[in-house]
């Protein structure tokens, strides 16, 4: 392993690229341009969008999505999907709320249990995918339905109703809320603390992906699991760890939502899994794995959040909401693609 490549000509892959070229090679460049375009568009046509409280509003909508999109992006770079991630947020919220209100557990303890449930769900997803070789699309779809059923069934059995509320009276609510759900005043606007979590998670994920060995493993197993295994990457462990990371992140986000709303509905979270995937793809992740970035996924979530709230600020007819949202996302993605193509041309 330590043979010196004394006389060998330098590998063209190892050549250090110039700063501009390295910038243009980034997968998130297109998403950044898309995000800027969406921002300028809504800032121009509405009054409230670019005000501090308007910005706080769409950041708030983007943050939970962004945290999950970054986690899902890592999994997608690793070549797998998790369709159970959306419902998992509700599962975690229900675990926290039920344990804290029905069984009098401290919120922090309930949170620990929710994280444990997240680890377990991710482990089951991962081990089944790795052991059977079934597409993760199918395996996690099964988990999605299982969790959906458990959410409603268990909640109904324990509480006799379909929403668990009153979390704000539980022990430890105040301190948990201060960390996970409170707002911080910046420029006169109440910015949700989840926004900072989002930034932190994105930074951490970027570091892991680009600067650590597990980051290399993730790219490797997503590019080709067989080849990765061939060069000694622990492919199975990497994938299982990714699934566990996604479910655990879902548990974190679910807890944040529960603390913020002080109640959880048994049917929430359904459909969110696609928003996570959409945000990751807008941000430059390939559906086939092996390529993508955490910053890109965060920007994808930002585009999604801005478009969602921007339509509201613009006062467009709500009957057409999904059409507007779909078109905006398509345009942002096309712009992303266009920028990336141009960048590739300029690179040569």
């Amino acid at each position, binding site marked *: 392993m330590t043979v010196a490549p004394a006389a060998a000509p330098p590998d063209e892959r190892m050549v250090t690229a110039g700063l501009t070229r390295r910038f243009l090679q980034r997968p998130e460049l297109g998403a950044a341009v898309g995000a800027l375009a969406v921002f300028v568009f809504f800032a121009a046509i509405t009054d409230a969008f670019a005000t501090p409280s308007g910005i706080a509003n769409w950041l708030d*909508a983007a943050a939970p999505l962004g945290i999950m999109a970054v986690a899902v992006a890592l999994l997608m770079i690793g070549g797998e999907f998790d369709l159970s991630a959306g419902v998992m947020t509700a599962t975690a919220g229900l675990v926290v709320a039920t344990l804290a209100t029905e069984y009098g557990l401290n919120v922090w303890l309930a949170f620990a249990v929710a994280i444990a449930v997240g680890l377990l769900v991710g482990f089951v997803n991962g081990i089944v995918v790795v052991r059977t070789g079934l597409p993760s699309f199918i395996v996690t779809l099964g988990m999605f339905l299982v969790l959906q059923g458990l959410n*409603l069934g268990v909640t109904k059995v324990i509480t006799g109703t379909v929403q668990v509320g009153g979390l704000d009276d539980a022990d430890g609510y105040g301190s948990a809320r201060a960390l996970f759900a409170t707002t911080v005043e910046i420029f006169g606007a109440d910015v949700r603390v989840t926004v900072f979590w989002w930034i932190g998670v994105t930074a951490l994920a970027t570091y892991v992906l680009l600067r650590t060995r597990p980051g290399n493993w993730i790219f490797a197993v997503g590019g080709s699991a067989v080849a990765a295994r061939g060069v000694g990457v622990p492919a199975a462990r990497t994938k299982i760890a990714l699934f566990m990371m996604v479910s655990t992140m879902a548990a974190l986000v679910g807890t944040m939502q529960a603390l913020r709303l002080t109640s959880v509905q048994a049917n929430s979270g359904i459909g969110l899994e696609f928003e996570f995937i959409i945000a990751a793809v807008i941000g430059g992740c390939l559906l086939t794995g092996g390529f993508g970035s955490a910053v890109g996924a965060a920007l994808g979530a930002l585009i999604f959040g801005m478009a969602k709230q921007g339509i509201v600020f613009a006062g467009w007819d709500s*009957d057409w909401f999904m059409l507007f949202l779909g078109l*905006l996302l398509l345009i942002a993605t096309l712009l992303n693609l266009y920028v990336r193509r141009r960048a590739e041309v300029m690179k040569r």
Partner: protein
Amino acid sequence: MVTTRFTKKRALIALLALPLALAACTDDDGGNDAGNEEGGGGGGSDFTFAVVTHASAGDAFWDVVQNGAEAAAEDLGIEVTYQGSGEPDEQAQLIEAAVSDEVDGIVVSLANPDAMREPLASAEEAGIPVITINSGENESASLGAITHVGQTETVAGQGAGEQLAEAGVTNLICVIHEPGNIGLEQRCEGATEGLGGTVENLQVDINDVAGAQTTIQSSLQADPSINGVLALNPAIGVAAVDAVAGAGSEAQIATFDLSGDVVSAIEDGSILFAVDQQQYLQGYVPIVLLKLYQENNNIMGGGLPVLTGPGFVTQENAATVADLAEAGTR
């Protein structure tokens, strides 16, 4: 090469222009708004009110609420926006957006009162009056709303149960179509009290009415002693008619709320009656009340909810309601 690049570029430009064009289509409102704001100094009635409900777009019941709110806006010459989302966090964000937009009043449905506590507090802080509609009458005042306009769900359920008992129903299934909605659970509880017989709750999904029909049908087939179906939504009520026919069951059907189809089913006798909460009023009245509050500081209801129902539509009065339901106001 040049031509392909050119067309590609043009396609991109066309796509970019599309939302602008769409925005322009809906810009009539925006134009009005701007005009209103200019006149805002002198006149007193250039208000913008935001209606934020827990219903996703395309729900027949909430469409009537929206029609009511928009009709009130037109009659009063003011601006009303209507938004909705079934996810509590999204509904909360829609309220926050209305607060950021500095509207003059907010109308909100309280399917999940706890989740609305925080955004409504920021509305209160911003001095924006709030009226709650539909479910959540018990929490309305504690969330700082000036009035609640709706129907008491338990009482309405009880009434439905009594009517069904009169029609000879002893074993009823109560079809819940939105698993997270507390108001629906209360209706079924009320029906249980009113009926005095066996009531089994059945979960279906309003986003999959065909699936709901098969679920109802199989539970009728599984237990032939079921002789009544109580639907809590007009689309589910109509699905129940097909399910009863498909199962070869003799069960009698009642439903909450009206649609054109439900009224004709009542006319031909396949649905016994509909509990009508006259939701058009839940759209129309709050807009009037908010205007009165803003202009004249009037508050209606005296701390008690303003009730819009329950009324019962049966074979006798169905014909008069039929045309109105078709027009989307009943």
